[in-house]
């Protein structure tokens, strides 16, 4: 199962990223789990410089912006 984490302290863009990632993951069809990481220390353990960020199976795939669903599919796939 794929583990998708959304890093962000709750800004509007973080919500948007979660929605986009969810939609992309659904379209791919593989089983997944989506978690929002909002606690600052936990976010910093991924060493990102900007939020929101998308983490797939522990690897930072993207930070600082919201991708399109198509792009998100590639990042998740």
């Amino acid at each position, binding site marked *: 199962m794929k583990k998708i984490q959304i890093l962000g*302290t709750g*800004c509007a*863009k973080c919500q948007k990223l979660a929605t986009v990632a969810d939609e992309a993951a659904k379209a791919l069809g593989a089983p997944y789990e989506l978690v929002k990481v909002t606690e*600052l*220390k936990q*976010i*910093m*353990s*991924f*060493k*990102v*410089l*900007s*939020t929101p*960020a998308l983490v797939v199976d522990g690897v*930072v*795939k*993207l*930070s*600082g*912006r919201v991708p399109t669903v198509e792009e998100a599919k590639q990042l998740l796939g």
Partner: protein
Amino acid sequence: MSAPGKTERILRVAVWGAALAVWWALYNNLAAVATWVTYSLVGLRKGSHLGAAVEFFVYEVPKVMLLLTLVVFAVGIVRSFFTPERTRRMLAGRREFTGNVLAALLGVVTPFCSCSAVPLFIGFVTTGVPLGVTFSFLISAPMVNEVALVLLFGLFGWKVAAIYLGAGLTVALAAGWIIGRLKLERYVEGWVYEQAAGAAGEADAPMDWAARLAAGRTAVREIVGRVWPYVVAGIAVGAGIHGYVPENFMAEIMGRDAWWSVPLAVLIGVPMYSNAAGIIPVVQALLGKGAALGTVLAFMMSVIGLSLPEAIILRQVLKLPLILLFFGVVAAGIMAVGFLFNALM
């Protein structure tokens, strides 16, 4: 290179060229259209308060929106060359003074959102960017705003734009340098430095021009989509001032002779928060009614450069004395800019 690819490229360049030509034609005919709409179509009387206000509004809204679209698009492309990760690599381990200069400059072009101020702050200080250099970046990034810069250029000409750029960079450079000299690391929350140092995260994926143009379009959609109500509201306030406030009314309270107007402008400006696009039409109207350039500049810089929400966000990583000092030093710098320009101009 195959022939179809080449045709497609030529076609694409032609489309962009045509789009720019349309933009230019629209931009240059706005004044005539606004006059026609106000006095012929709506039928307001020339020289009336309402007429002046409406003409201002009808002229400025499309003008500012056109400028904003073009500028945000261009900035979106420029920013695709600068990521926060790359900026950090350029700043890590810099000596203080050069580091402050570079940080202030990079603050202008690096994509930055105040909601990312905390991760960025931690990411910088734990990988060897000195505290003062980090502050130079954090001050310059919101204050020297590319939207403000180009709106000033469009509305007042290159001199005012250059003054704003120079003043913002100087304040960021000086304030960061002072904070660095004071050795205030003890006022950073302890847990920040316990974060394991190390740069990781996303590797900079190489981008082609199609991706950069896409970044420009995304920026237009996001930024123009978000700020247009502020622009319209700002211009409406500006139009009201333009039409109804008597000439030289502002000279009394915001003129160069009223020395206290500069600190007052900063005091009012700091807790206020508006984005640059909304504040500039107000600035234009104030200047037109005799307010002094230094005072207006100080007001604008304190509104867009310092804000209460940012202070609250930064409280997670900075102890209160450092936040107060940060705001104090920057506010003092902005005041110095205000006094300087009131004295010079």
